[in-house]
């Protein structure tokens, strides 16, 4: 069951990721990204991160991506021209480099990761809102506060940037 769900949503995620990169229209890319996020949320749930899964959907899909879609609609961004200003050589070289990159990462992961038992749903119960909240407000209190300041700065920055005359 775990494996089934993993393969289902992993393939959805990869498919959506490929779609993100290859689609010419920004809206299509954005929806693909939402697909990735949704399937990742399921995988988080599988890994015992129920709070983080909900936060993933609320924050990423529900807020950040809405903002993206909003901006795309606002700018009425059309489809990207197909003519990539890039030689075939660069394209294939790039793909090769990326493939090498992925292969290397996979190799390193396989080689360096200690052998542990596989993921079973429900084996880790620590990702509840209670645990996260407790940790967040004790051990990670300072980063939390700093992050809130960061958000405040971001709000101000966004407002200043989006004002009419710049």
């Amino acid at each position, binding site marked *: 069951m775990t494996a089934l769900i993993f393969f289902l949503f992993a393939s959805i995620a990869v498919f959506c990721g490929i779609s993100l990169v290859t689609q010419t229209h920004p809206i*299509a890319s954005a929806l693909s990204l939402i697909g990735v996020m949704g399937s990742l949320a399921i995988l988080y749930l599988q890994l015992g991160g129920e709070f983080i899964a909900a936060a993933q959907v609320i924050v990423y*899909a529900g807020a950040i991506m*809405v903002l993206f879609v*909003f901006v795309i609609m606002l700018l009425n961004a059309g489809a990207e021209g197909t003519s990539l200003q890039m030689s075939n050589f660069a394209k294939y070289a790039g793909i090769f480099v990326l493939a090498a990159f992925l292969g290397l990462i996979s190799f390193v992961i396989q080689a360096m990761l200690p052998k542990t038992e596989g993921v079973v749903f429900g084996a880790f119960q620590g990702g509840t809102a209670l645990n996260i909240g407790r940790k967040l407000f004790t051990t990670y209190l300072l980063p939390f506060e700093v992050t809130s300041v960061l958000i405040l700065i971001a709000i101000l920055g966004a407002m200043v940037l989006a004002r009419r005359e710049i």
Partner: protein
Amino acid sequence: MDFFILSLIKAAIIAFVLLTTLAYLQWIERKVIAHIQLRVGPYRVGPHGLLQPLADVVKLITKEGVVPSHVNKVFYLMAPFVAVALALISIAVIPFGPQITIGPVTTWMQLTDLNVGILFVLAVSSVGVYGVALGGWASNNKYALLGGLRSSAQMISYELPLALAVASPLLLANTLSFREMVNYQSGYWLGFIPRWNVWPEILGFVVFLIAAFAETNRVPFDLPEAENELVAGFHVEYSSMKFAAFFMAEYANMVTVTAVATLLFLGGWQPPFPEPYSDFVPILIFAAAGVVALYHGLHPARRMDKFTFPATGLLFLGIAVIFGVSLLVPVLKTILMALFWFCGKLGILLFLFIWVRATLPRFRYDQLMRFAWTFLFPLSMVNLLITGLIVALSSK
């Protein structure tokens, strides 16, 4: 595989009831608004227009589904599907009643329970904006686009006070699960005041309701589909079942938010009176309704009333009898009482939605945004702070 079969049965029941309710909700809305405006509303199809929803469904299905030539086809077709799917999905975590045991099976009156059920509802509702936004954009029509843009901005803005208003009862009950939230609200102060969150959280409840109106794009926040300026907003290019899907999504969202409001603030299926008295309330209500209907049947104003009133009266009396019988059968009593109180609260809130629609004018767009950011958001923030303070003080 017991789990699957059980879930399947529950899903089938809930889907059937929900879809029927949605269809009839529309009938109720038209009827109520008509009566408020001193009209009679749908009257032709069936007695008192009771079969009108059926006729509407048939009409919408059989109409030609026009796909305009200038639209972005994939997204155009996807949008209503997304809207309705996301609207229906959150019903899955809404509990309607307590745990029940029928024969060998023990289960909750709920499709599934999540530890983070409230977060789930929030997540799904926050994603729900895509249906409207996408439909508006894919229509390739400037009115539709404006509607979609407005809807996304509006929903993002009102999600904040909504989430903050939800956070206050969460703080009180210290849980994210709907079941525990309802359990927390059981019992009575001084023996007769129900321990519902609405009393300490009256401010949060009001904020939640207002934000819920905005989230569901209902009057007075129905700017995405403002008829007089945007023709019909995001669904101007939609027809037949695709149009119906948007409609259904709106009503489903209404049911969801009212259900959440009931669960968070109004004690879910907990009766408002202590145990022995609350058992007789439904019997009394239905019996009284039946008696009144029978009485009217004795003095018919129209020819038809000679049959319809007694029939309705007998139906109500029958229901009253069922409730009476249920007092003797514990299983039935649990189910019926929970359903009665839950649906009663839900119905009152839904009536409020309709009532407001018939009463209030629409906001202007800048007023809408200013209201959200400069009034509702600070208010909910203050409410959350006060709640936090109270919780901190009372927890020693």
